C-alpha cells in the first residue's frame, strides 16, 4: 500500500485558536493564492467534469461486450480505440473516472468521520481508555493489508460499498492516530481547560473546540486518502481482487491493458495510466496546498 500520509511526528501547530471557524478566511486566501492550490484544484475540477459531464456529451455503450470490435486502434468513431472487450476507451475512461472518484471520495469521507470520532474520543478521554483504544489501532495496523484484503474479499462478494468499507478499514487507523495527536496537544490549551472549568460538558468541548481546530489536519489527511484509495484500488485490480465486469474503473483498465503492453496496444494502457496519475497528482497538490495554507494561518504570517 502506498505510504499513508500519516504524520505522527509532525509537531502540532504552534498556535491554536478557539473556535477555528472564524479564522478560516486568511487560510482560504492563502490557499487561493498558491500555485499548487490553483493547479491542483483546476486539475481536479477538470477531471470531475470529464468524468461526470463527459458521458452526457459522448455516448458509448459500456455494457455490451462486442468481441468483433475488440482491440481496435484509435480511428473513426473511437478516438481512443477500443479495449479487448470491444468497449470504447474514451467513454470507458469517463465511466472509470466516475467510479474511481466516487470510491476515493467515499473512502475519504468515511475515514474522516470514523477516524476523527475515534481519535478525538481517545485523545480527549486519555488514560487507560486511550491506551486500550490505541492498542486496538496498533493491532489492526499490524495486520498485513494484503492478507486482510484477500481474506475479506473472499468473505464478502465485492461491490462498490464493500470495497469502500474495506479501504476505509485500512485508512481510518492513521486518521485516528493523527486526530488523537492533535487532540492531545489541544486539550492542554488554556481555553479548553477554561471551558471545562466553566462547566461545559465533554462532548460540547470536543465538538466545539477540539474538532474545528483539528479540521485542518483532517482535511489534509482526507485529500491524501482520496489519492491513496484510488491507487490502492488500482493495485487490488491488478491482483485480481477488483470489481467484475461490466464495472469500469481506471485501475482495472490499466491492469487489463498491461496484458497487451507488448502488443503495442498503447491506447489500452496509457490513457487510464495518465488519468490515474493526473488525478492522484491533483489531489496531492490540493492536499499540500491546504497544509501550507494551514501553516500560514496558524503561524500568523
Amino acid at each position: 500500500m502506498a505510504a499513508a500520509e500519516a504524520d505522527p511526528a509532525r509537531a502540532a501547530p504552534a498556535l491554536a485558536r478557539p473556535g477555528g471557524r472564524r479564522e478560516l478566511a486568511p487560510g482560504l486566501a492563502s490557499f487561493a493564492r498558491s500555485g499548487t492550490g490553483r493547479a491542483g484544484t483546476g486539475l481536479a475540477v477538470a477531471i470531475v467534469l470529464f468524468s461526470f459531464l463527459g458521458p452526457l456529451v459522448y455516448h458509448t455503450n459500456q455494457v455490451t461486450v462486442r468481441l468483433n470490435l475488440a482491440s481496435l486502434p484509435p480511428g473513426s468513431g473511437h478516438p481512443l480505440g477500443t479495449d479487448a472487450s470491444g468497449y470504447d476507451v474514451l467513454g470507458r475512461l469517463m465511466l472509470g473516472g466516475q467510479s474511481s472518484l466516487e470510491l476515493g471520495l467515499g473512502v475519504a469521507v468515511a475515514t474522516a468521520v470514523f477516524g476523527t470520532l475515534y481519535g478525538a474520543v481517545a485523545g480527549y478521554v486519555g488514560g487507560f481508555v486511550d491506551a486500550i483504544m490505541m492498542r486496538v489501532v496498533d493491532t489492526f495496523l499490524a495486520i498485513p493489508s494484503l492478507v486482510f484484503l484477500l481474506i475479506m474479499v473472499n468473505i464478502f462478494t465485492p461491490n462498490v460499498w464493500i470495497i469502500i468499507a474495506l479501504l476505509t478499514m485500512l485508512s481510518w487507523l492513521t486518521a485516528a492516530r493523527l486526530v488523537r495527536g492533535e487532540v492531545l496537544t489541544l486539550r492542554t490549551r488554556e481555553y479548553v481547560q477554561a471551558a471545562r472549568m466553566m462547566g461545559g460538558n465533554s462532548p460540547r468541548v470536543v465538538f466545539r473546540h477540539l474538532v474545528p481546530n483539528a479540521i485542518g489536519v483532517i482535511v489534509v489527511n482526507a485529500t491524501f486518502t482520496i489519492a491513496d484509495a484510488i491507487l490502492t484500488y488500482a493495485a487490488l485490480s491488478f491482483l485480481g481482487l477488483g470489481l467484475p465486469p461490466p464495472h469500469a474503473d481506471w485501475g482495472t483498465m490499466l491492469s487489463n491493458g498491461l496484458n497487451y503492453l507488448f502488443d503495442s496496444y498503447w491506447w489500452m494502457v496509457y490513457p487510464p495510466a495518465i488519468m490515474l496519475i493526473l488525478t492522484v497528482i491533483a489531489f496531492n497538490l490540493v492536499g499540500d496546498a491546504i497544509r501550507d495554507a494551514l501553516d500560514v494561518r496558524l503561524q500568523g504570517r
Partner: protein
Amino acid sequence: MTGYLLRRVGQAVVVVIGLLIVIFIMIHLVPGSIARSVLGVRATPGRISLFNSTYGLNEPLYRQFLTYLGQLAHGNFGISYQLQQPVSTLIAQRVPKDIVLVGLSTVLALVIALPMGIYQAVHRDRIGDHLLTGASFTLYSMPDFFFAFLLIAAFSVQLHIFPPEAPSASSLGGLLADPRALVLPVVTLALVSLASFSRYMRSSAIEVLAQDYIRVARAKGLPRRLVLSRHVLRNSVLPVVTMVGLSFPSIIAGAVIAEEVFNYPGMGLLMYQAATSHDIPILLGCTLVIGVATVVGSLAADIAYAVIDPRVRYGRG
C-alpha cells in the same frame, strides 16, 4: 527508560496475540471448506475427512487456537497444507529474500531522499525545487505495477541492459552475486518510497530551517554545509525515522507486486498464495512474524527518536 521499555514490550505481546486472534477468526469466516480448497478437484469425502482429522479442523475454534498457541510455545509453526513443508522453513527461506530486496530499496530511497529533501528546502520555490517536486509527485502517483512494467519494457525488453527477473538464488550470497538482476526490482520499490521520504524530509527541513537556532548558527559564521549536515539533517530526519520504523514491517512482508512482476518468490507471494488457498498455518505464521516486526519497528523508531532528539523523554505513559 527501563520501565517504559518493559511496558512497551508487554503491550507488544498483547498486540501480537490480539493480531493472531483477529486473523484466525477472519480466515475461518471465509466460506468454503478448507479441505476442498487444498485438495482441489481430487477431493473425495474420504480424503476430506482424512484431511480434517489430520489437521484438527473438526475441533471447536477456540480449541484449535489454543492448540496453535501451544505449538508456538514449542517453536512449532505447523506444516503448510498446500506446500507440505514446515512453515518455519518456508518463512526462513523467504524472509531473507525480502530483506535484501526491500531493505536495499529502502536504503537506496533514504540515500537519495535525505539530501534531496534538504536541497529542496534550501532552494525552496525555485526551479530545482519545483522540478523535483513534480518528479516526486509523478512517481508517488504512479501505480507501482505500472511503473515496474515500464521499467521492464524499457530497460529489459527494449534495451537489453538488465534482466527482467530478479535473481533466483536461495542464499544471500547467491542473491547478491547477480547485482544486475537486482537493479530493476530495487529501483522500482525505491522510487515509490523515495517520493514520500523526500516530501517529508522537505517539509521537515523547511520547518527546521526557519528555526532560530539555525539562524544563530549561520550568524556565527558556520559554513553552510556544516549547518546543513550537523543541524538541519539531524533535526529534520525525525519524521523520516518514524516512517522508516513504520515501513519496517513491509520489509518483512515483502512487496507482492514486485515479487510477482519480477519473478521473485518472497513473503508477499507466500502470503498471497496462502490467503487464496486457505493455507492457515502459513497465514498465521507470517502474520506472527510481521506482527512482531511491526511492534519492533515502532519501538525502534521511538527509541531512535529519543536518541536523535534529546528533548524527547520517555518516563510516564
